[in-house]
């Protein structure tokens, strides 16, 4: 098997996607940017949730740290968002390392880990809402400074779109590259069986902390991008459980622990929810949340391994069918 193939596929698809602005209207370009933002965030969550199997329900915390850091630094000190990005990376890394250290050191697992992460991201909503310097409950508006890469601001959606494509291609390449590395194998070992992983020399606590930091930092980068696109950050729009669940739902529906799963999930669900919101937002507020709930339940019932898992199974079945003679339908493979 050609090892370069997955990389080539990512780059080629990324390049083809860049042609979209030629055919999409402004409304659909807006949705396309949203798809990219959420795809990126879902890929970031996939590291801790999908590969390491630690179902964090609070990655909004890191997205919020990213978004608020950049908004605050731009507004207060007039810095370029690129500086904000660096500070956001440092802050989110520190937060993720600290939280990971406490939580994993005391071996919080499964539902307990999920509860702690959700509590932290909710706490962040209330903390931020009560800090006037951060705009309180109303959040912060950011000033538009004109079409300039230095300010990470663009007129219209195309600039953001290309930036989003770069980010998503970057995270896919990163994931693909890491997949052959010791670190990712250790994460999978942790997910599959922690005792066995420890017995094979895997420092499970360290591996989980590293995964949390990597996931957190990338979520913060997504948060920076989100803030720059909307030029607004609010406690509930970047922190909090609704955002946190939104991040993970795309990864779960698309396929946990797969390179493309989170992207596939976002490509299918984001437009669905945006269009529902557009059509039913006034008559049925919150209808897109209802839709998420429905999709989640259906996913768990019919494709527990997400769309990528289902695709794998169908492919196997198809190969099996084409390889097996029709006459001999009984008797499995001899072992």
């Amino acid at each position, binding site marked *: 098997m050609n090892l370069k193939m997955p990389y080539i596929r990512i780059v080629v698809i990324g390049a083809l996607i860049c042609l979209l602005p030629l055919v999409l209207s402004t409304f659909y370009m807006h949705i396309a940017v949203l798809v990219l933002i959420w795809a990126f965030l879902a890929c970031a969550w996939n590291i801790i949730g999908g590969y390491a199997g630690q179902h964090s329900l609070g990655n909004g915390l890191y997205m919020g740290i990213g978004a608020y850091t950049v908004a605050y630094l731009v507004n207060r000190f007039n810095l370029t968002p690129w500086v904000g990005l660096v500070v956001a990376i440092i802050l989110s890394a520190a937060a993720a390392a600290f939280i990971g250290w406490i939580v994993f050191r005391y071996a919080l697992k499964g539902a307990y880990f999920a509860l702690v992460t959700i509590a932290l991201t909710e706490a962040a909503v209330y903390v931020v809402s009560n800090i006037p310097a951060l705009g309180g409950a109303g959040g912060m508006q950011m000033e538009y400074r004109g079409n300039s890469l230095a300010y990470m601001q663009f007129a219209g959606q195309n600039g953001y779109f290309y930036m989003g494509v770069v980010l998503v291609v970057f995270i896919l390449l990163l994931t693909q590259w890491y997949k052959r590395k010791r670190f990712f194998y*250790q994460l*999978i070992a942790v997910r*599959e069986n922690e005792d066995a*992983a420890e017995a*094979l020399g895997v420092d499970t606590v360290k591996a989980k902390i590293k995964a949390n930091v990597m996931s957190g930092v990338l979520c913060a980068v997504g948060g920076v991008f989100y803030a720059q696109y909307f030029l607004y950050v609010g406690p509930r729009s970047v922190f909090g459980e609704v955002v946190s669940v939104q991040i993970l739902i795309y990864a779960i529906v698309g396929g946990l622990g797969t390179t493309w799963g989170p992207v596939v999930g976002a490509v299918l669900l984001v437009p669905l929810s945006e269009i529902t919101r557009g059509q039913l937002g006034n008559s049925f507020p919150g209808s897109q949340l209802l839709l998420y709930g429905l999709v989640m339940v259906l996913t768990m019932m019919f494709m527990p391994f997400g769309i990528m898992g289902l695709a794998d199974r169908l492919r196997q079945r198809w190969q099996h069918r084409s390889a097996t003679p029709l006459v001999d339908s009984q008797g499995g493979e001899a072992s």
Partner: protein
Amino acid sequence: MTAMLEVRGLTRRFGGLVAVNDLTFEVNEGEMIGLIGPNGSGKTTTFSMLSGALRPSSGTIAFNGERIEGLKANKVCRKGLARTFQVVQPFPDITATENVMIGAFVNTGGGRQAEAKAREELERVGLTPKADTLAKELTLLQLKRLEIAKALATEPKLLLLDEVAAGLTSTEVDVMLKLVRQLNTEGITCIIVEHVMRFVMNLSHRCIVIDFGSQIAEGTPEEVLNNPAVHAAYLGEEASIA
């Protein structure tokens, strides 16, 4: 010459229960030691303490002259002391090769080297035909071999084998016997916990018998088999008198 493994006064209490009581023994390089005893006598608890999965309540464990009691399992493993589990512990959703690669990553950072090492170990335990099969699709014998391959991939100097023959058919026991003997001739020191007596008696240079957490006998397989205390432990007092 100092022993490879020196265990002194090893004790583990669970509340009021003393699972392992003041266990003292040595293992020399190249030896094959059988650790036997009736069910619940503390064999697996001893293994768990040696491998770092469980902290001893008291006592010391020295491995190649270095104290290792209380170290975490991953550190112990990286010092060259690996174990297999009584209840097989595969990583179910990845292939046999990938399972073994996780062990191989102890000594290499590169994916390609780890894969080469993993395929080598699978060959060693005779699992090459199943290299690309998901672990959850393997049979018990294959899983037991996989356990050994995973442990071998970490390049252990001392290998703790916890009931690798249990649950296997007679023919399968023979296969496993040959494999473990082969490992020993290749220079790996082994401690085996086993209920399948044919397996232990055939392999061990020396046996340590424990009952209720305490050592009751030590010696060659023949000496141990003829020891009245051992008979008593396994069959009860009266049976041994009769």
